[in-house]
């Protein structure tokens, strides 16, 4: 219990420190700097990082990137998951095998060829399409959908088919309403990916007005931060803005974010 408490402190302290550091007028790395000091507090770091990387624009970019991935995963992922669980068609075994294989293909192996294809051949650098493409359908989410659809009683589907409902109608009217928790789980799982993703958008966006916040902030850390008045304050202010949406979403839906869902998803 005490060990858990110490552990929780070690895990949460950096986040508390992130917030304190983002509010400090002058960097104070001493022990006293851990406590909030009203004389040394300011929101100036936030306006400074906003002036450097335009928080609004980059947040919108992160939002479009994440939203695009979520939309594709939910629409095409549900269709694929339903087909894999409930429909018999030629090629189902192949598709299922490909899905399993996908989980062990490391992304780094295909980074360079994918970069060649998307940037050089298709000319999709600095575009949301190029950013979204590699993550468009989250295979783990497809797997979660399939697992949920498999759990539904087959009689339900047989009955609907006998009534003459089309498969799309069955999916929308019968299956999806019964697996709403799966939609939420998949949304939460998928959201973290593109929102936090760094390497891929970093590779393909050179224009500032197309970069997601994570990329813009990292460029600030590596290049321009030296010129800022209180660089660490500005970095931490940007970090707070980047961290807040994911943490907020997680805190709101924590109870829905159950271990069994994730477990069944990743075991794929």
């Amino acid at each position, binding site marked *: 219990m005490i060990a*858990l408490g110490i*552990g929780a402190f070690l*895990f949460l302290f*950096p*986040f508390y*420190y*992130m917030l304190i*550091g983002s509010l400090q007028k002058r960097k104070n*790395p*001493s022990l006293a*700097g851990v406590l909030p000091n009203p004389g040394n507090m300011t929101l100036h770091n936030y306006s400074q990082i906003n002036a450097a990387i335009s928080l609004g624009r980059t947040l919108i970019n992160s939002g479009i990137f994440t939203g695009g991935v979520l939309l594709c995963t939910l629409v095409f*992922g549900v*269709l*694929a998951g339903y087909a894999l669980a409930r*429909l*018999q*068609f*030629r*090629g189902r075994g192949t*598709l299922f*095998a*490909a*899905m399993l294989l996908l989980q*062990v*293909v*490391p*992304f*780094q*192996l*295909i*980074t*360079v*060829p994918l*970069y*060649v294809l998307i940037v*050089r*051949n298709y000319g999709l650098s600095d575009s949301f399409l190029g950013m979204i*493409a*590699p993550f*468009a*359908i989250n295979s783990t989410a497809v797997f979660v959908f399939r697992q949920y659809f*498999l*759990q539904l009683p*087959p009689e339900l589907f*047989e009955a609907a088919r006998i009534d003459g409902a089309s498969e799309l109608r069955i999916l929308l009217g019968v299956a999806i309403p019964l697996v709403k928790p799966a939609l939420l789980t998949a949304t939460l799982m998928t959201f973290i990916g593109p929102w*936090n993703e*760094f*390497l891929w958008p970093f590779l393909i966006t050179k224009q500032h007005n197309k970069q997601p916040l994570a990329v813009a902030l*990292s460029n600030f*850390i*590596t290049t321009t931060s030296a010129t800022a008045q209180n660089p660490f304050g500005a970095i931490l202010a*940007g970090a707070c803005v*980047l961290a807040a949406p994911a*943490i907020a979403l*997680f805190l709101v839906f*924590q*109870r829905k974010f159950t271990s069994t869902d*994730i*477990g069944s998803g990743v*075991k794929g």
Partner: protein
Amino acid sequence: MTTAQISPDDSRRGGHTSPLDGSPAPSRDARRNHRSWPERVLGRHPVGILFGLPYAVFIAIIFAYPLVLSVYMSFHRYIFTAPGVGVPRPWVGLDNYRTALSDPLVRQAFLNILIFLVINVPLTVVLSLVLATALNSAIPLRSFFRGAYYVPYVTASVAVVGVWLFLFNTDGLVNRLLGSLAPNPSWLINVHWAMPSIALFVTWKQLGFFILLYLAALQAVPKELYESASVDGASKWRQFRSVTVPGVRHATTLVTLLAIVTGANLFTEPYLLTGGGGPDGKSASPVLVLYQQGIEQNHPDVAAAIGVLLVIGVLVIAGIQQLLERD
């Protein structure tokens, strides 16, 4: 090999619902005799092809084709050109592999990732199993603790890297606390400490996810085993060793495998925490070198070779791990 290990597991779990042949038994025989030709060629629900098509296209374009192209590039001289411009791309055999392996930076990067894995993987497995076991028992504030361990995982690496830079700086809080015990030069610019610091950072960042995997596995360990163990007078530690650890063996295999794959993908942390793999390339990761070679220095063919080598390395380590765990 990893796929072979995963797919039978899946069919076993889904066995009662028959994942690959889900047709309900009663109507099957009646239908088989009256199947029309589209049914025979396309299956009983041809609409499934339409439903699965976007996903199939995605797999083909985003994974299968680049995978093949990657291997192709690693055996040819390949340079970037504008679309449509034809340049010869001659077969060069293992030349790109030779170039990659004779580069001391590349060799250093592979050594670095080994150091990383030696620290990160055992630490991850032990800490996440112990914490998951503690979190699985009835303790006050359980959901608060779960949340606390989970927060780093849901947060972007780029964001928390900022705090770690602040904490582990030369005049950062950690060094102030340690006083003369602090390494000099400081953690992230110290040739001995740079890679271990990154390994600790990643362990801290990813632990919540692995705790979650173990929590799921612990649900499946039968409660009766603990009851009979405590009737036999086994201590808590003894129960942990004889019931919990064997009970979550499959999860341990998965956690180890995923930790290795995550480690092999390492890029953001050395790039940002240690300013592009310094000091002296002592914290460069293979993916970082792959990025520098392929995109900064315009040698995509050598970069592809590094990628293939990295994957072979991961498969070998995963294979050894499988062999070790079999007995």
